[in-house]
């Protein structure tokens, strides 16, 4: 008999959460603290979704999405997790750019950007200030037809080098391009390129371990190896989910799965109005990623060449070039022994944005050949910064959009949810089906560790409101342990 991953689960909960990404877990923790009974179902063996890691022979621990996040994560962790989680967040000191247009290190904050733009790029102080003020003041109600490209052209006409400085890190951070609405840029920029880039000391494994401890403390039932294949709906009201062949009931279901899978597969299109489905059909998925994981042999060292390195050999910046399978642009994250105190080991992870369609339909041989090519080109590039690095490596591995799809079940292996229009669909979901909610990477601005976690909180507020409207907190559902 296969192991029963649902052993001891209750027959009903106040809320069932599908997926343990940062959006799902943060919502679950908050709802439990607000007094609701919560079940989190995750299909993978690890919790954390894209906030994940893996271990390999030779003592290597490799992080997937721990490259950097904005300062706001400290406050979010302290408020919705614990002081212990928040206290492990530290600033990355050395962020570097290296491309044919410019090469320098930056502390990645407003003061430094202002100075760089004046001294290196010769922009007037007033223009820089004006740009920062405009970007900071942007909000939802602004004109959506203005793209980030229009915004940059307005302030820095014809200055492709400045566009690169301002856009490249954001493209890596959330997959957005010069063609996306300027307000998505504005909101993300104000979070990200303002007070530095931060990381989690101890690595993603420690973060998730601490979060799991907190979930347990607050009484959340968390299960891995549990794949939800259906959200149960009757007469436009949520009833629960079907998971590993069993039905479990709840008043609310919060899906941390991709918004399109939630609607099209888990719920089923037959439950939604034609007008809503029309909106759904317009939602574009965001792009995916390729990564190369490089483990340095125990005992070897590498010099400090920065924490985060945005490198490119492209003469000029275009959003499209970043997506090409043989792109000449990538970011390197360097993990020095300080990342995981006590482990005394180095690792390097290279990330590029990628299109699912470039990888999905290859036969096995061609797929392996392209993966090898990716690894080789990545090492050729890395050697410019870390001479002779090949001789120090004892683990090498690559992932592609199909890898991301397999682990997260996101359509197209998306790294960053959907384009902007996905957010409205996500928010309108409960209006279609009572008790059905979605939280997780969506609409560009709700992406990344901070975006996903905060969106989890925003949606948990709606779930709490809903649960209290259907039943007073003191009236507990009849439950049996099975």
């Amino acid at each position, binding site marked *: 008999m296969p192991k029963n991953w649902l052993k001891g689960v209750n027959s009903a909960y106040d809320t069932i959460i599908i997926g343990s990404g940062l959006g799902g877990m943060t919502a679950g923790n908050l709802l439990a603290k*607000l*007094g609701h009974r919560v079940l989190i179902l995750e299909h993978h063996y690890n919790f954390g979704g894209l906030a994940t890691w893996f271990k390999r022979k030779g003592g290597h621990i490799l992080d997937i999405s721990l490259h950097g996040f904005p300062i*706001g994560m400290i*406050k979010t962790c302290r*408020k919705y997790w614990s002081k212990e989680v928040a206290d492990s967040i530290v600033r990355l000191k050395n962020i570097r750019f290296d491309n044919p247009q410019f090469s320098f290190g930056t502390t990645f904050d407003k003061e430094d950007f202002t100075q760089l733009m004046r001294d290196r790029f010769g922009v007037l102080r007033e223009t820089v200030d004006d740009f920062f003020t405009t970007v900071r003041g942007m909000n939802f109600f602004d004109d959506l037809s203005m793209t980030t490209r229009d915004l940059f052209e307005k302030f820095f006409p014809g200055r492709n080098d400045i566009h690169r400085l301002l856009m490249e890190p954001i493209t890596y951070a959330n997959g957005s391009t010069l063609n996306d609405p300027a307000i998505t840029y504005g909101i993300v920029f104000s979070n990200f390129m303002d007070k530095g880039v931060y990381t989690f000391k101890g690595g993603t494994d420690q973060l998730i371990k601490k979060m799991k401890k907190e979930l347990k403390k607050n009484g959340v039932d968390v299960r891995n190896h549990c794949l939800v294949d259906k959200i149960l709906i009757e007469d436009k009201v949520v009833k629960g989910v079907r998971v590993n062949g069993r039905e479990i009931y709840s008043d609310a279901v919060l899906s941390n799965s991709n918004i399109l899978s939630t609607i099209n597969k888990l719920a089923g299109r037959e439950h939604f109005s034609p007008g809503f489905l029309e909106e759904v059909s317009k939602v574009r998925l965001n792009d995916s990623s390729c990564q190369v994981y490089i483990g340095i042999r125990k005992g070897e060292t590498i010099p400090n060449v920065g924490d985060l390195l945005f490198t490119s050999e492209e003469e000029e910046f275009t959003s499209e070039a970043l997506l090409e399978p043989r792109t000449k642009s990538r970011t390197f994250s360097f993990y020095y022994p300080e990342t995981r105190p006590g482990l005394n080991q180095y690792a390097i992870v290279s990330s590029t944005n990628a299109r699912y369609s470039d990888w999905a339909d290859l036969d096995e041989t061609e797929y392996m050949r392209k993966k090898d090519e990716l690894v080789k080109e990545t090492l050729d590039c890395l050697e410019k910064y870390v001479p002779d690095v090949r001789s120090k490596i004892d683990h090498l591995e690559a992932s592609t959009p199909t890898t991301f799809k397999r682990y997260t079940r996101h359509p197209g292996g998306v790294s960053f949810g959907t384009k902007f229009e996905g957010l409205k669909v996500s928010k309108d979901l409960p209006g279609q089906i009572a008790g059905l909610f979605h939280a997780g990477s969506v609409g560009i601005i709700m992406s990344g560790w901070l975006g996903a976690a*905060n969106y989890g909180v*925003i949606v948990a*507020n709606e779930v*709490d409101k809903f649960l*209290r409207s259907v039943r007073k907190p003191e009236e507990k559902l009849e439950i049996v342990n099975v």
Partner: protein
Amino acid sequence: MTSEEVRKSILDIIADIAPDEDLSGIQDEVKLRDQFDLDSMDFLDIVMELRKRFNLEVPEADYPQLVTMSSCVEYLTPRLKDHQPVG
């Protein structure tokens, strides 16, 4: 609760949400955002705390009423008149 008790309850909530802030010199007529490091997530927390502590729902359209301490007190006092102070 009297308006003075309502004011005290709001102060308690803000102190929980923003433990690093010194609230002793709070000016009731000045926007909370301009005096303290409060962002839109913090205001959402205030709404959630009001629901948790007093079972009071503040509709999204009324969020602007929470902009200063005095507007909070004015908005909340009639809605919390039958409540005992908690927390």
